[in-house]
């Protein structure tokens, strides 16, 4: 009994923490639900690029998509519009200026070799053939003194070029240009073979991070300019969403009423458990954070369905145990243990599906998989701990005095039939032996 009371207070504290998190943290919502910024980007022709081809637009689209991902905004929509424009819709942009800089800016990294006069003085820079295209990845790091620097990792070809460059110009400076501007001119101390390089300079962390993100996202194949920027309403339509919200609440109320009428007191407990369950799941969504789109909400609703299902399974099983003449305490326990095997296997299958969809699926699929997986894992917890704990605290031990509390008839209990023994430990994880 003591453990049960500790458990009860643990649940109460968890609920309060969830409530605080929900109150404090905003939940990022997707384009379909709240809208965001709509930016139109136009590819520009230059002296070297006379005509914008479809290949260039495809490249530009890929580059923009990876840049948006680098910004940490998920659920973005990038569409080609007309011949040389991209329509980009980004949800929840806290700083539109950031998006603007990020999307429009090219990311040209170039290593330049020195032009030397007869006395080995540097009189200018020329292209060395080593550029951002030879890069595997870039990272922000610190040197021994704690100053921010950028570490570069070249791919195989890049490493060869870099080795050749450092061999040739040992003792001389080389220049690293970013977007046509020299950001660092280190002197080569020795030949570097490993394909790793560092850019040191007076960077702030943010500046270093921005360069790294841009480098990792790749250069834009054509210069692009933002020609239009608007905030935009939800794609699913504010009108529709308002109605669906009300409808969803009515639906949930109907489910709760059903549980109450059919399962009586356990139904009430299940309803309370469901509310606690929803609070915990929402708090987790906000902490991760998960960008909620309709797909994400679908995953969440499915997990609520599974949580209700878990409760129904448990109650049906407990009723069966009661009918077979058990005392309340054992009936509740074995009801849980027997139902747990099916809850475990069905939920595990769902989680397996989610993991695979999350790692392989596209954006929409990812959002769905993430919310469903979180929901299902929490629902296992809520069915096992919350419902069970409340049931024990509420009913205590002894015989069931008022069968109607379970939606049972007096005669059901009296005509108890012989059932096989269920041993708790045997039913713990799945297969009964």
């Amino acid at each position: 009994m003591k453990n049960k009371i500790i458990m009860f207070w643990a649940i109460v504290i968890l609920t309060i923490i969830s409530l605080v998190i929900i109150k404090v943290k905003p939940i990022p919502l997707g384009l379909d639900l709240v809208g965001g910024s709509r930016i139109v980007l136009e590819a520009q022709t230059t002296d070297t690029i006379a005509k914008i081809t479809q290949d260039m637009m495809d490249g530009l689209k890929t580059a923009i998509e990876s840049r948006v991902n680098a910004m940490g905004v998920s659920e973005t929509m990038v569409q080609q519009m007309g011949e040389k424009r991209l329509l980009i819709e980004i949800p929840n942009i806290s700083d539109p200026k950031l998006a603007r800089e990020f999307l429009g800016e090219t990311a040209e990294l170039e290593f330049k070799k020195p032009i030397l006069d007869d006395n080995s003085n540097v009189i200018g820079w020329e292209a060395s053939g080593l550029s951002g295209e030879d890069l595997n990845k870039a990272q922000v790091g610190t040197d021994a003194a704690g100053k921010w620097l950028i570490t570069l990792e070249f791919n195989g070809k890049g490493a060869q070029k870099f080795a050749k460059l450092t061999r040739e110009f040992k003792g001389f400076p080389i220049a690293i240009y970013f977007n046509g501007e020299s950001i660092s001119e280190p002197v080569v101390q020795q030949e570097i073979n490993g394909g790793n390089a560092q850019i040191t300079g007076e960077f702030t962390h943010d500046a270093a991070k921005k360069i790294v993100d841009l480098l990792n996202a790749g250069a834009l194949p054509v210069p692009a300019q933002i020609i239009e920027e608007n905030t935009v309403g939800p794609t699913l339509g504010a009108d529709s969403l308002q109605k669906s919200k009300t409808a969803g609440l009515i639906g949930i109320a109907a489910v709760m009423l059903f549980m109450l009428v059919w399962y009586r007191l356990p139904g009430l407990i299940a309803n309370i458990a469901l509310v606690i369950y929803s609070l915990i799941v929402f708090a987790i969504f906000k902490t991760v954070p998960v960008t909620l789109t309709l797909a994400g909400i679908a995953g969440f609703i499915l997990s609520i369905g599974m949580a209700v299902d878990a409760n129904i399974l448990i109650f049906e099983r407990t009723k069966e145990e009661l009918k077979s003449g058990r005392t309340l305490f054992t009936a509740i326990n074995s009801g849980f243990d027997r139902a747990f095997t099916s809850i475990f296997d069905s939920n595990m299958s769902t989680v397996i599906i989610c993991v695979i969809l999350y790692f392989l699926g596209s954006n929409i699929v990812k959002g769905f998989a993430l919310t469903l997986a979180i929901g299902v894992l929490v629902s296992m917890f809520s069915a096992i701990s919350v419902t069970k704990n409340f049931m024990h605290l509420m009913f205590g031990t002894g015989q069931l005095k008022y069968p109607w509390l379970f939606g049972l008839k007096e005669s059901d209990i009296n005509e108890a039939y012989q059932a096989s023994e269920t041993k708790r430990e045997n039913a713990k994880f799945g297969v009964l032996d």
Partner: protein
Amino acid sequence: MSYSVLDTKKIINVVKYRWLWILISVIFLMPGIIAMLWSVKTYPTHTPLLVGIDFTGGTIIKYSVNTEVSTNDIGKIRLDLSKNNVDNPVIQVLRPVTTEADSNIKNIISVKTKFSENGQNETIDAVSEVITADYPEAQLVEVSSVGPVLGKQLFINSLIAITLALLAIVIYLTVRFHFEFALVACIALFHDVLCVVGIFSILGLLCGVTIDSLFITAVLTVLGYSVNNTIVVFDRVRENLKFYSKKATYDEIVNASVNQTLARSINTSLTTLLVLCSLYFLGGVTTKDFVLVLIIGVVAGTYSSIFLANALIVVWNKFEQAKKAKTAQ
């Protein structure tokens, strides 16, 4: 006389009428399959379903207005547009960030839709007619074509992901249950998804219902629901097989298990349908098709987990026994 758990009330006999249950599924799936084949043959996109602007791209038509556009106004525009044969439009209200030269512009109404078969101009006229009826001062600002949100590659990647997920489920269920249970669970799942896709293929042919990116999400949800449902019933079969395999025949055990889980199967489906029907009848227009997929999926999933899956398991078992008897001879 000693009572046994297997002596529960038998409402449904899945074993005796097993071929009937399988036949019902086949009969229900046939029209959908035919519709899908017909669609692949006749649609210019060669897809089994009528695809919407998320897959094909479309046009964005924008109007500037100098009044605020409220949520109710969007609802009215949507209704009027569908009356004017512009189906499934994406209506969004834009608020210009940069103050442009014409500061009179308060909002921009952006309508994204598919071109009608009769060409671009007809679509633009139809939309303009509706917008100018509500906002006489509205100006047509821009018409531009937009590409698809969902490329072919993305779609193929999703299919690969789903296939791999199913394989993983077969492995998991083979370990936890038996191979035949894993296989039948997947057939039941395939049945549910095919049912949904088939009905939407028919709806596409008959009423021009298109599918969008939400459809993929809905099908995934049906998939998750279906696996869940089938496993719960199979779990009972597994448990009863452990306890009673010496006292009762395989057929009796399967039949009893189905009837024991019947209350749960019906109650779970009922609670899910309560929410879905509320969303379908009271909810917004843009999510209606999404909810319809789920409703069809839940009904199909309930049927397959009670009838189809267990009928197939019994058929498989009979087949195995017959094979055993043959080798014994």
